[in-house]
């Protein structure tokens, strides 16, 4: 299989593929039954009426783009535009309905922050669990667990069960785990929304550092300020379609015009 693409390598010092991610004509359709949970009772009622309650949700429609190594890409769009779905497809979690996703590198996903793996375990134990979930070996995890715990700045709380944490504290643990996995491709979904000012600043610095070392970074945020600050490329999704791709300022401007929101302090800041 191709690991090195035939295209000439432009700016990279090694002979690696110039791409980090390539998405070709990606569509993702969820087919869900109308009831959130398929149960026998509903099934019998539905059978009786002779109807099939299949709901088709087109989360992504024919999205194509490629991302070169060294890109920090912002993904913007309204709620339900398919941003998280796109991330999950790039992480290999959601299978495409049609199209292809190619990824060069180990992806570390920080999707939907505050995923405490087990609330009755301590922060430290959850760090181990999170590290193993991202594919590290036990030894690698044990080497890093102290750094990760230190970085959260939770002090003694790190030994307390996660159900004593506030959502911001849980987010710190989740963020810290994700950024310490030395991923090739970092994907961050609404990372900074629950952190306090101090942590947000620290996280921004860490992300800037990772942007230089990782092959590519993806950042989903409704805080358009942080997108234009952190990213050098941007795509805008709306109802599953790729509306625009370009420099963050241009895309954000177009997006603002589209949703008819005046650029104000409230929209540019991470709320």
């Amino acid at each position, binding site marked *: 299989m191709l690991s090195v693409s035939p295209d000439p390598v432009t700016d990279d010092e090694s002979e690696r593929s110039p791409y980090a991610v390539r998405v070709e004509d990606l569509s993702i359709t969820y087919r869900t039954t109308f009831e959130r949970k398929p149960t026998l009772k509903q099934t019998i009622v539905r059978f009786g009426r002779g109807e099939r309650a299949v709901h088709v949700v087109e989360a992504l429609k024919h999205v194509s783009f490629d991302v070169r190594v060294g890109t920090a890409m912002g993904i913007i769009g309204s709620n339900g535009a398919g941003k998280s779905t796109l991330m999950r497809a790039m992480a290999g979690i959601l*299978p495409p309905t049609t199209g292809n996703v*190619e990824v060069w590198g180990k992806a570390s996903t920080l999707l939907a922050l505050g995923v405490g793996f087990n609330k009755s375990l301590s922060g430290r134990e959850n760090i181990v*669990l999170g590290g193993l979930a*991202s594919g590290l070996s036990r030894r690698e995890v044990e080497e890093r667990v102290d750094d990760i715990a230190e970085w959260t700045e939770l002090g003694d709380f790190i030994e307390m069960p996660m159900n004593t944490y506030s959502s911001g504290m849980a987010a710190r643990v989740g963020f810290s785990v994700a950024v310490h996995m030395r991923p090739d491709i970092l994907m961050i979904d609404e990372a900074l929304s629950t952190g306090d000012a101090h942590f947000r600043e620290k996280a921004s610095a860490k992300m800037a550092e990772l942007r230089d070392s990782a092959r590519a970074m993806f950042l989903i945020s409704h805080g358009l300020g942080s997108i234009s600050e952190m990213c050098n490329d941007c795509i805008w999704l709306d109802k599953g379609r790729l509306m625009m791709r370009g420099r963050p300022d241009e895309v954000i401007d177009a997006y603002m015009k589209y949703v008819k929101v005046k650029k104000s302090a409230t929209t540019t800041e991470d709320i």
Partner: protein
Amino acid sequence: MTAPTRERETEFEPVYHRYGPHRAGLPPLLPYFRELWHRRGFATEMSRAEIRGANSKTLFGQAWLVLNPLLLAAVYYLLVTILRGHHDPKVFVHLTLGLFAFQMVSHSMTSGTKSVVSAGKLLINTAFPRLLIPLSAVRTAVFHFLPTIPVYLVFHLIFLTRVWSPSMFLSLYFFGCMLLFSAGLAAFFATVQVYFRDTSSFLPYFVRIWMYLSPVLWLPENVAHFSKTVVTIIQLNPMYAMLGGYAEAIQEEKVPDVGLFLSSGLWAVAVAVIGFLFFISRERDFAVRLT
């Protein structure tokens, strides 16, 4: 996720993944199982976390791992003694042996069934071979089984003082079969549960009936007088061969029939292959179903 194509394992060569349309169907199995093996530490930690988390708020804490089998044995001792009207040590020791082993299989199955659906956030946010989830549930069941071994040995020492023989080691074969069988069942029912959420509600009843049909509360010799057809039907139960061979090896100082070995092995392998392949062929669809 499908098993990723790992080009080379070095730091400088990026790992290449290609994700194409895929609803049902098997990924390349060799890379899948290699990745599964690579991530085994995660399954171990998930199961360990569950065991630690489960009793964290109780007064007795981890002592429940031994208290549970003791109480269970006590309840069934009462039941059997009352039903039979007298104390029968042989029946009691057989009962505990069968009960603990059956519990391991049924725990694997019931907790394996719920494992994928309850993995929720973890499943939709992280990519790893999903088979780790039910396998982790099986590990938990095995770790609940381990403390029952000393409990059983104490009963064995008290009631079957003179029954010790090298054939006891043959029970390991039957234990292995039960383990493989459990893993297959856990994977199979975990998949079914994703599509049909009522499965986990039906299972406890099914498990209870299954236990009554297996040689746990009765001995194989108790059914010997039934007609041939009935006996054949009873013997078709996979747990008949597995528990039967297991108990014979441990308590009867004899090498179990070849038939029991063959039947146990075949059931275990067949159920494991079917369960695993069914699970793997569907696992990429799980994220879509659980969102």
